[in-house]
């Protein structure tokens, strides 16, 4: 049973009398990679900076590895918290070489041991042989690796990553995020990253927190966020989907245009009340044998699949992911089938 390494308990941050973070609470277990996901201005970076110690908090408590590092009254300076940080712009020191940057935070380590550790870390991030280069001569991806190695060098208890891949191009971003996950996992590092890109969050993180307006909407694994969103905002923000009107017909049971299903984690709604059912594109399958017919109103080619927007007889639309050899013209009617046991519904 692993212990909790990072705990936020009702944390609030205020800038010039403006609240930017409300009642933020979550826990990260040792060895877990967490992610705060949200649009810009949602407070995710502020949360990261509060954990690192760059922002004082106005409410709540932050604990790292059992030490309470921040309360309203007590603020540990960043250098005491034992937290490594990878900055969005890397913040490498231009007056030092790659080795100088990586070894920077290893105070009190004998120079031979330091050099050995620097070399080992450069090996890990795939930059062996670059020790004596200056950082401005490196590519964006290489700078990113130096920043990671530098943050890992002092062996922090917790690693924070602020939009670590946003300055890289898409292809490199995907490759590097996988690499970073492998490095972190192989070292058993606990890490928290911040991003606006849900693919990045899904690729890297064990736990994801969706933030909006300075509040945490849901803290969960990626699967749960996608298939069991806690509220309508999370359902909209994460992934694609459509909402269909439905009626509650019994305890945990409802009826909508595509059938009758059990409802999961449904707030106790009175029988007869009207709700909205969330259908993801992968819940709706194409099936020529089905009697349920829907008309293609829009289609988007996604390589292996088509994303069809389908109009039901009532006029409501749903999304469906269909293997791309099923190429149907707009206006055509196709058979569909619901591949889902329990649905999620919102009032």
């Amino acid at each position, binding site marked *: 049973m692993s212990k909790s390494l990072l705990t936020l308990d009702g944390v609030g941050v205020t800038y010039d009398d403006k609240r930017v973070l409300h009642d933020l609470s979550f826990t990260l277990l040792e060895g877990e990679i967490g992610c705060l996901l949200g649009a810009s201005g949602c407070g995710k970076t502020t949360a990261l900076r509060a954990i690192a110690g760059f922002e004082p908090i106005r409410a709540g408590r932050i604990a790292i590895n059992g030490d309470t590092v921040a309360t309203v009254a007590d603020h540990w300076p960043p*250098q005491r918290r034992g937290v490594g940080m990878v900055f969005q712009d*890397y913040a*490498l020191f*231009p007056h030092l070489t790659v080795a100088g940057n990586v070894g920077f935070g290893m105070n009190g380590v004998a120079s031979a041991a330091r050099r050995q550790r620097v070399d080992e870390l450069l090996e890990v991030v795939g930059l062996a042989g670059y020790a004596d280069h200056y950082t401005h001569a490196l590519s964006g991806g290489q700078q990113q690796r130096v920043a990671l190695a530098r943050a890992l060098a*002092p062996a922090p208890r917790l690693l*924070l990553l602020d939009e670590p891949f946003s300055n890289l191009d898409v292809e490199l971003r995907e490759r590097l995020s996988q690499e970073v996950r492998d490095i972190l996992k192989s070292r058993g590092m606990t890490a928290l990253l911040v991003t606006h890109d849900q693919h990045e969050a899904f690729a890297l993180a064990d736990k994801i927190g969706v933030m909006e307006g300075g509040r945490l909407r849901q803290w969960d694994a990626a699967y749960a966020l996608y298939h069991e969103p806690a509220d309508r905002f999370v359902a909209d923000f994460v992934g694609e989907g459509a909402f269909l009107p439905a009626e509650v017909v019994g305890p945990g049971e409802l009826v909508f245009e595509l059938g009758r299903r059990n409802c999961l984690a449904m707030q106790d709604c009175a029988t007869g009340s009207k709700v909205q059912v969330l259908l993801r594109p992968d819940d709706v399958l194409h099936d020529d044998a089905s009697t349920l017919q829907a008309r293609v109103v829009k289609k988007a080619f996604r390589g292996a699949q088509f994303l069809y927007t389908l109009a039901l007889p009532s006029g409501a639309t749903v999304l469906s992911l269909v293997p791309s050899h099923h190429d149907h013209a707009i206006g055509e009617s196709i058979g569909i089938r619901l591949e889902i046991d329990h649905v999620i519904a919102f009032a």
Partner: protein
Amino acid sequence: MAVSLSSSTLPWVECIIDGRNQAAVGFIRLMDIDIPHTAPLPPTPRRLPRRLDEHALAWLVAAVTLVPLGVVLASLWQPEGEVWRHMAEFVLPQLLINTAWLIAGVAVGTLGLGVSLAWVTAIYDFPGRKHFAWALALPLAMPAYVLAFVQIGLYDFTGPLQSLIRDIAGDSSWFPSIRSRGGVILTLTLVLYPYVYLLARNAFLTQGRRALEAAASLGLSRRQGFWRVALPMARPWLVGGVSLALMECLADFGTVATFNYDTFTTAIYKAWFGLFNLTAASQLASLLVMAVLALALLEQRARGDKRYTATGRGAANRPERLPPWRGWMVAGACLLVLSLAFLVPMAQLLYWAWSVAAEQLDLRYMGFVGRSLALSAGAAGVVVVLALVLAYAVRRKRDIASRLAARLATLGYAVPGTVLAVGVFIPLAWLDNHLITAAHALGWAGVSEVIKGTLLVMLLAYAARFLAVAFEPTQSAMQRITASQEEAAASMGLGRRAVLWRIHLPMLRGGLLTAALMVFVDVMKEMPITLMTRPFGWDTLAVRVFEMTSEGQWEMAALPSVAIVLAGLIPVILLAVQTEKHA
């Protein structure tokens, strides 16, 4: 330019610094010319006659600076005269010692004062921080020669401070003399520290913040972060700031003259007016140019070849609040510096001016003001036109030759005024002699002076010195006009001249106004060129200040000084208003 200034509250100072920096750095980077980052414009059909070719224009403008510089440097190879031998034996050693002390003292002083003020105002929050941040740059508005005589008036034996000490303690003989090497160094440090302060502050604000956070996340305290990160990262800025201050220091004439502290500039002046020996003046000037060049080289070496790019954008990080008692101590220290460098001298200046205003504020004084205004305005007009021509040529051509011309043309800002005065006068005097001979041959026996003794000498010297000041804002305004804007105009049927009138000039208006204003104020404050090349009767405010301080008449010198300082504050106010509007 390696050091770029991006965000600050004081664009006018940046203008000055940019211009000066450009000139300084230009000295050694003549060959290291940036390849234009935009594609060259498509060649336009040549309709202009050959004599209006942009290259020719650019080099013509550059000649304004190159001819005087060349004349002065050429004197290095001139045969040594009797006067020169005398100087080398009896004068030169003292000049060198004095100059070396001055440079060392001002370097240490401006660095210490500038860096510490920049650090506290950039990183910490304390009472009055926001106001100190801009006010600490104010001493730049006061010419060094004005502060010089005010300092002497304040701290000399008969001054108010020592009188007060005598009233209380009965004896003030222990008080260190202001008329000393230390006094000159102190005065120049107080005037010139803003260069280091502004550049260092800019470095700490733009790239220090995020780097300091990174250092903190790696376990360093603020103090460790300063020594291991902020200071080494700011090195190019610091070297830049100190070398600007030292160049000013080498160019300074008024301060050392007031303190009777002999340096190259005063020696040139004496050779010129005391000995009427142009050759000796020019040889001294060439040595001074060599000193400036050495400084520029040193700057280049110290800056190193590392390219420093800003680390991080302006982070949302707010300054760290100091505990109350420390905060008040820091505020007190800032106030002390500001008082010594600006507030107290300004108060003393106003007091003196007020005491003589009734009798001195007469038609004669208005004459000084009028001539100063006329000269400044005239010079501003000439210099801006030259800068515009140069910037336009560079834009049309975008090649090495035109950029080299621009580099060379803007060198003058790094060259002391005394040197340029000598360099402009010598060739014009030569030309004059030939014109007079020609006139006599043609039968006009009465002709004795054609160019000498006219405003042309003065205007050319001003142009050589201040072209960089006008070129910087003009060129940056020009760079904001994109090639596609020109192409859009062309696609709507506008010819080249129409593009110039309907696109370039309207879009350049702001930049040209800034350029004119900067030159105006600089000429207003200028002393050595005005002293050495003014036609008979052209006494300006600066000349009046020089004459009165030479006679030790501080009250009389105060009145014209106030006018000069007020003129120096114009751009501060105007541009502050402008910034306010944009913000």
